[in-house]
């Protein structure tokens, strides 16, 4: 089944579900819930199941988004993003101010001890990337995951993030840089108890070796 025909089928199931066909809803949920669950797993693992459910309820009711602009999965992930942002705004230290273009997941939710990140201990490097992603602004994280893991097109990512395709390339560029920096930061090891000066210290200390 091609992506295009799968997409057409998803849309047909959604139309039937919204018309009252529960079996179509069950089928559509079964087909697409994994993608949504994984979307939340890298961001709010403790609430992933609840948020997945909320996303599908919003999908059934047609809340959040008026139309399918590019593909069903972009549409669904767009709803998931709004569901996540609403959740984060609720939990953010200053309620309501979570800003997905600037705030990271870690701003709103502390790293849980038992999470998919913790489950990945045997895959050190991957765990580190998942960790680093959580430090980026939420929309940077989403853009990177969509691009590399879900293999969404630029147009689809734009639909998920609710912005123009033209801005996505620049966003991906910045997100990559930010990810590299975050990974490098994690690799720097235990931070000395001098956080304010940590940066200056490490950069200056390097050339003191000469």
């Amino acid at each position: 089944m091609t992506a295009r025909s799968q997409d057409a089928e998803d849309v047909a199931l959604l139309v039937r579900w919204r018309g009252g066909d529960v079996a179509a809803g069950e089928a559509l949920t079964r087909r697409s819930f994994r993608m949504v669950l994984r979307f939340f797993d890298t961001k709010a693992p403790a609430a992933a199941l609840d948020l997945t459910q909320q996303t599908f309820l919003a999908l059934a009711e047609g809340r959040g988004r008026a139309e399918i602009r590019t593909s069903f999965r972009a549409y669904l992930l767009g709803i998931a993003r709004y569901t996540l942002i609403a959740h984060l705004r609720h939990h953010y230290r200053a309620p309501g101010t979570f800003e997905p273009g600037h705030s990271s997941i870690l701003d709103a939710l502390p790293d849980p001890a038992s999470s998919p990140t913790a489950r990945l201990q045997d895959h050190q490097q991957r765990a580190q990337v998942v960790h680093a992603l959580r430090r980026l602004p939420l929309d940077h994280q989403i853009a990177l995951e969509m691009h590399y893991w879900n293999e969404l097109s630029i147009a689809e990512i734009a639909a998920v993030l609710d912005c123009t395709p033209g801005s996505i390339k620049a966003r991906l560029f910045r997100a990559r840089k930010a990810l590299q920096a975050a990974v490098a930061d994690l690799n720097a090891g235990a931070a000395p108890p001098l956080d304010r000066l940590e940066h200056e210290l490490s950069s200056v200390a390097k050339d003191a070796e000469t």
Partner: protein
Amino acid sequence: MDDGSWNAAGLMGAPPPADALREELALATLQRRMFDSKAPAPVLHRYVLLDTLGHGGFGVVLRAFDPDLERAVAIKLLRVDAAADDDGVEALLREARIMARLSHPNTVTVHDVGRYDRHDLGAVGTQAADLGIPVPGVFLVMELVEQGTLQQRLDAGASPSSLFGLLLDAGAGLAAAHALGVVHRDVKPNNILIDADERVRVADFGLSQTVERAKPGAGGTPAFMAPERMVGGAATPASDQYAFALTCTVALWRVPPAHARVLFDDVAPVPDGLSARVRPVLARALHSDPAARYPTLPDLLGALEDAQRPRVRPLWIGGAVTVAAGIGLALLATRDDPCAHAGDGLATSWDAPARARLRGAFADVSPTHAADSSNAVERALDDYASRWASAATEACVDTHVRHVQSEDRLDARVDCLGRLRIEFAEAVSLLAEADAQLLPRAVDVVHGLGWIDACETPDGAAHLPNDPDARDRHAQRSRQLARAKLLEVSGRYTEAMALAQAVRDSPDASPISRARARLRWGSAAAGRGLYDDAKRALLAAIQDAEAARADAIVVDGWLRLLWVAGVELGEPQGDTWAAFARAALTRLGDDPRREAELAHGLGGLAYRQGRYDDALAHYQRALAMQRSTLAEDDAAIARTLNHIANTLLELHEPADAAPYVDQALAVRRRVLGERHPLVAAALNNRVRVELGRGDVPAALRTLAEAERITDGLDLPEAVVSARLRQDILRDLAERP
């Protein structure tokens, strides 16, 4: 064009692997909630399976719901190896039933236990194998402990001292199971759970034995396994003891289990907040012969607790001895006492031949001033040697006679005093080679020797290497650093830098030595006016010292950085460096000499920023502290006096400045002799005072004195004198 995409693709890699069982359970929950689905739920007997908590070689752990008791539980599903005989499973079930009867705050409570097969699993029964559920198997229903494991604590960098109590708790849980005849078989950081209230629970008692029966020696985690089990021996309380001690070592020393040998290696420092006596206790529990370990786990726990408890014996224990010590050390020293020779250390380097060499060298350099200088230097050396001897005797008496400190602390004090002895010997030999450049600074060299009082609260014991070669190299580095320091004091900055660099680059230098070397290099570089290089080296020194937890070096680093970057370079972060110096000093604790140095630094900052009133207040505070801790002739006091005078002159208060100028001058004359350039510097200040008073004739007389000292020499003091003379002459010419 590089936009980072290639790197990013590599970095991102594949998405996190899916957990098929978790997704299946999530879907079932979702369908149930959203569609009120009548489809059978994934269950195990009556428990509704909700989520996965972990996978392992043994099977899988799930979060589940017990509808009868309406509570969340953890369920462990264990593979029953087809090759394992039924006895193994029965033994596991029997032990689990015993554990279910055990209610101890430090063990995970077992609620239920039994066997299961495909048909007990409801909706997931048919695809159990695909989902990674072992069938048939044994299940254990246990209390659900949210939060983390000791392993996660370690990964998060918890401090050793914060873990000690948690480890003892874990040991108590383990001991409770031993009392019922249950052996854990797989003690390790991952099996020690810590909840949000810091309650510790040991999990997974006896679980590894299903595997073990099939393949002897295979159950448990090899890295934590006692040696006797590696060769097929049975799991016993003694093998649990070994694994527990190894867990403690890994947690407290932050080493991988394979490196637990650090325990037997004196080089590795004992972690902060931990008593050195913990080491031999754990070493015994880690003995390869089970019979040589502690008889029982509670014995080990008791020994650990004892070892960590401070063992300072109160004074009243040896009442008579205390009285004797109170009467006086001299009296004791005549008896058969262990400290009679504790203070002899410096005598070997400062003996009659050494005195003769010193006098000879001084006479060669300056026949006219030799006696003066030599006398001053000898007095200073004698004074230092006698203070060192009483400090060393005091340290010994505290341990062996008064019993008010542990041997560990004695070691640390002796180690500190030993460093000073090396410095002293270097100073004596450096002075015996004095040349024209060194001679004027000879007394400074002695005053530059380490501060003896600081050894009463030393920077932790430096554990010397056992290997004689390594010990030699360590001693060699200590000598080099001592010499570098003295060279710096005597103004031979380039040589000091070269020696410091050699130490820094020596491959087996300890982090503390490296930090000291960098500090020295930076300090000497600042002496040469290479402030930017000095700043970088000092930052690196602070980093090294922080890593090695060498608090005193950290403080010295910030203090010097404050002066170099804040005062000399006039960088705006001066106040920040000062704040870090203050913070490090707070951590170091009571240290009036460094407190004074900080106050002096703050004065310099304020002076540099033109806040002369603040500068004056800081300098005055510094002076008060220095007067109460340093010798009256100390160069640091003269320096502070001179800076106060400078500040007052900036404030146009020449009359107030006068006494400070005179005091500085007096100290320098006494210590350095009449012809020292620093005396000329103080004389120049006096000229400014006298000019401020309008007393031009006095100013001219003083200026002439200064010029006599610097006559024909290319010194900054000479330049200042010349400028002053010009000012006076211009001033006179402009007068009506």
